[in-house]
């Protein structure tokens, strides 16, 4: 894949369910390669956005382009390049693991059975067990092996570790990151946990109340944003346009600003901001359109 190609481009995408808009006016351009995290609270519209990306849903407005193709058409060729792991990693519970692999082979022209078997063997997951009898962590691993065996160019995961215990969570992320390191795959995954994202992700999309509130390369975002700490004040330095959040303590005022690296006003100190605090600050920001309703 050439650099500069977009893994995902959305233009004014909205999705309306009967009860209201789950996603509004979502315009994104996410680069190919690397790991993209989609972050937001429950009901922010993450699942809706991901289902739109893999063509499970059709947008009410706008267009979704994946790997340069309109995904609404859902042709074999586009579908073959996308791997998807839905929330709670659904599998056919009465199928054995081997039958799940046969399912993958039956439904895909490109399916690397050997790769999947190899991964599962390494994890000690027996092929002759029914998937319904496996632990949650093992089911997630089977679903991941299935998605990776398609050798997708874009792998989309919806809350992949939300239902797993800490150990399974760690193991899952390890396998996922191993796969990223091995190949050219772009990974887009959603999470409502902000913790540890910095270590894993290159790119960030923050979704709140059905709208994108922040998107960008994580390193760039961390360079652009910083915390300014100074004496407690009502107004703060004359940069209110760039102020994301203001927090007053007894004697100090802490501002989260997006101002690049402008010189700091006298009496104020600049500090780098942690990714988690940055995301939380954006999620706390009021003024987001309240007509959007969550539909997870």
């Amino acid at each position: 894949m050439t650099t500069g190609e977009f893994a995902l481009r959305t233009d004014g995408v909205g999705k309306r369910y009967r009860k209201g808009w789950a996603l509004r006016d979502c315009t994104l351009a996410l680069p190919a390669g690397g790991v993209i995290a989609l972050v937001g609270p429950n009901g922010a519209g993450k699942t809706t956005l991901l289902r739109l990306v893999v063509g499970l849903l059709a947008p009410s407005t706008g267009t979704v382009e994946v790997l340069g193709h309109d995904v609404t058409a859902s042709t074999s060729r586009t579908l073959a390049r996308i791997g998807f792991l839905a929330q709670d990693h659904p599998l056919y519970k009465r199928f054995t693991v081997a039958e799940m692999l046969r399912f993958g082979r039956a439904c895909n022209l490109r399916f690397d059975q050997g790769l999947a078997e190899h991964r599962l063997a390494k994890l000690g997951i027996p092929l002759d067990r029914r998937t319904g009898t496996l632990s949650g962590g093992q089911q997630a691993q089977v679903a991941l092996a299935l998605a990776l065996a398609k050798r997708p160019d874009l792998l989309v995961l919806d809350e992949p570790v939300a239902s797993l215990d800490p150990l399974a969570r760690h193991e899952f992320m390890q396998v996922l990151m191993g796969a990223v390191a091995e190949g050219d795959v772009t990974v887009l995954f959603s999470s409502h946990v902000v913790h540890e994202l910095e270590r894993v992700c290159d790119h960030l999309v923050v979704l709140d109340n059905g709208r994108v509130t922040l998107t960008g390369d994580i390193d760039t975002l961390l360079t652009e944003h910083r915390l300014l700490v100074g004496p407690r004040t009502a107004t703060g330095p004359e940069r209110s346009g760039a102020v994301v959040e203001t927090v007053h303590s007894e004697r100090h005022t802490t501002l989260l600003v997006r101002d690049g690296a402008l010189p700091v006003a006298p009496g104020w100190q600049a500090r780098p901001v942690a990714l988690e605090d940055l995301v939380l600050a954006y999620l706390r920001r009021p003024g987001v359109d309240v007509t959007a309703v969550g539909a997870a």
Partner: protein
Amino acid sequence: MTWLIWRQHRTEVCVLGLLVGVFGIALLVLGTQAHDLFPGGPARCAGEARLDEACVASFRRLDDEYGFVENLLAAFYLMPVVIGAFLGAPLLARELEDGTWQLAWTQAVPRTRWLAAKLAALAGVTAALIGTFTAVLTWFRRPFDVWEGRFQYDAFDLQGLVPVAYALFAFGIATAAGAVLRRSLPAFGVAFGAFLAARMAVGLLARPAYATPLTSVEPVPAGGSEDRAGHRPGVADWTIDHGYADAAGRRLTSSEYLELEAAADRAGTNLNQFLHARGVQQVEVYHPADRFWAFQIVEAALFATVAAVAIGVVVWRVRRRVV
């Protein structure tokens, strides 16, 4: 895809296959014995002209020995809905229930092709199972049909084309209900209810009106029903209405008829002679037996059309990604 469809639906297919097999074999065994009562085959006794002593004896034994089986056949009214709804309900509902639709429709097989393959395969199995069963049942009923005709509810509804159309109707409704309700069991229930309602409404209200019925008006025979030779309609015809008319041909209401009956009682004469003397005529409204296939085709087309509409709704929903 063939393997996947078989793997996902083999339980239903096997259970239904077993059901059809067990009942089919039972009918074949009993039917062979029943057919053996007619040395030249039951067709030899068809028609009142050919009804000789031997035939009458055979029919009597048939009624004595196998009449109860014929009554039990009514249970097979439900065979089409059991087969159709059992295969149709989980087609989409189970995927939606378990979340596996997200797995199935993100593989390289586009969802419309996935759906087309599933619909074709399972509708095919539905038609094959009910078709086989209907063929056996039709064969089993042959001696009964020769005697009673095949236009009565207990024959018409179990034979020919209509059971296949009923089953496809149940399949289509169950599939569509599954797509909307997203759960198998309620979808099965909806299909069951729709089947009963549609079958009753069509059988009682629509079917008599598929063609203009014929009316026969004849004087009441003086000697009662014994000397109604050549009188139409016969047993094989489907009488949908009967009553009496006066000499001028005006239909008598039931109270008028009861008055006549009371008058005959008071006069102390035989009712038939009494009616005959007054020129009262018997009126019978009926469909002749040879309309059987025309009626079968109309009713089958009716149910098949509804099935096609239901399937159309399913395809539309899946294509438009409503589910």
